[in-house]
């Protein structure tokens, strides 16, 4: 078994209401030195055999990320 991780984040120019809501809540936890929060998805794909980066990239592109508003990164997890 081998794990590939796909991180999917909103493109930087796209509004991230979730991240904004969290950033706005931080002062209530006494945190004031955070400039911004962005929230995306972390997808862990467990392959039966070898970690297949190419495959994972294809899955990310077709299924996990919406290229209109999101970017993704694929990496093998050690």
């Amino acid at each position: 078994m081998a794990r590939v991780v796909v991180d999917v984040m909103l493109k930087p120019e796209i509004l991230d209401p979730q991240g904004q809501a969290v950033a706005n809540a931080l002062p209530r936890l006494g945190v004031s030195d955070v400039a911004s929060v962005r929230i995306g998805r972390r997808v862990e794909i467990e392959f039966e055999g070898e970690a297949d980066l190419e495959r994972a990239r294809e899955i990310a592109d077709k299924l996990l990320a919406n290229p209109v508003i999101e970017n993704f990164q694929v990496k093998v997890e050690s």
Partner: protein
Amino acid sequence: MSIDTVERAESTPDELQPFAELGLKEDEYERICQILGRRPTQSELAMYSIMWSEHCSYKSSKIHLKQFGEKAPPSDRMLAGIGENAGVIAVNDKLAVTFKVESHNHPSFVEPHQGAATGVGGIVRDILAMGARPVAVMDPLRFGAADHPDTARVLPGVVGGIGGYGNCLGLPNIGGEVVFDPSYQGNPLVNALCVGVLPVDRLQNKAATGPGNIVVLMGAKTGRDGIGGVSVLASATFDEGSEQRRPSVQVGDPFIEKLLIESCLELYENKLIVGVQDLGGAGLTCALTETAAAAGTGMDVQLEKVHLREASMEPHEVLASESQERMLFIVEPSNLDAVLNVASIWGVIATPIGVVTNTGRVRITWHGETVVDVPPGSLADDGPIYARPLREPADLILLQADRAETLPRPTDLRETLLTLVASPNLCDKTWVTEQYDRYVLGNTILAQPEDSGIIRIDEETGLGIALSVDGNSRYTRLDPYDGARLALAEAFRNVAVTGAEPVAVTDCLNFGSPEDPAVMWQFAEAVRGLADGCQELGIPVTGGNVSFYNQTGATAIHPTPIVGVLGIIDDVAKRIPMGFSHDGDLLFLLGE
């Protein structure tokens, strides 16, 4: 890069400008130069290209839409009509209702979830701008074939987007349509209707009156969303090139919109503002010029005061941005603190960005340099108007010759019935409607699966309103004049059968390219039919929306006029639901 200022424009008269890329024709560009007495700055060019786009200027439809006013029966219920953000109808001497249907078709094809969501957000702000509390939404939808793979992408996204946004605003969804037809394969239709209620004396106005008054922008920060959205997405044919236009899709934040709703209502209630305009397509450009033009005043705006999501934005981008969830207010200086206080209670950003002047010019500066100096009426009211050529579609005779009478009679009725029941257009719509909250606010009297939605608007007296939206594009393709009348008649009947009295009409006219004479003919016929139908039934069109360029390549969608009818019911307890109520009731069939 240095900013293109008015001063610079004057000193570089021959600089080439990308007007054609922005969708302006050569003669339109020349007119702009004439109006300004010089070439426009980059910001001004962006503003004219947006405001003179089909979507904002109604340049191809205006001469036809006039009929709605000319043929309309006189109605003393109408407090605001066509030309306002939404039509307003007096229900009694205390309460009024405002409603309107709008399209968000192209964005919903590109990014179904966000496109549909921001469609709901946009129409809700139109209703809010009239002074009303939004109380319900509806969503007439058209998709390609139910078994086409792309429908599996578009439909769940659209439904999720409409539900996600509307549910989060706390607006019950009280009806709509789901229709499948291959003609919508590359161009689904996402129309959204919103209805709101206001005390008659709380009706708001968009005019930026009173020189010295402050211009306040409230709501979300401004980002690069939807730049060129209106002019590019909604005013051009959608084809392979559309891939590159993708970044202009906006992302909505319904939570901020909910806070805007509550803030606005508090401002209206406490009479803290003199004018209000929502920001939708064409963003600040539209809001600034329309409010100033409506009052015949001017405005001095310091654009750098606008809260930006991305610091690197340039003035023309700030002016063109279609970031969602923003409203513009005109505020007397003595009320400014109170306005800012309301915003801070609800946790939304409010920023004074300029003042009303009596110069008759909208002047916009960017860190002290003048980037815009225009007469606002030239953008808001005096856009180009076209009488486009009309020609009956060549295939119409053939289509009409293929009559129902010539079809073979079915021999196996059971088989026919099963085919009908299994057809996507007739099947149960619960998969869709379950994703919408129809109970929130606690005043929904009728909703899915009824013919009309009914909302109680006065808990003490039981006063209510009924609404239905309908359209039949296959019929309209065969005969646009009667197709439009049929849509009206269907919505009218759906409202009437609940026991409500139909009083007003809104419409969303979804058509192909106006540059195609056959499409333009369909449009002209449909408008004529709808206007005549309204005259015959004795109810006015109070507002609506035109969506052109709904086509894939050279192939237009079926012409799709969607008609919404609003009715009044004095006591919702007397509404008549669809189902059979009592054993032993008699059944009658009226009509032929």
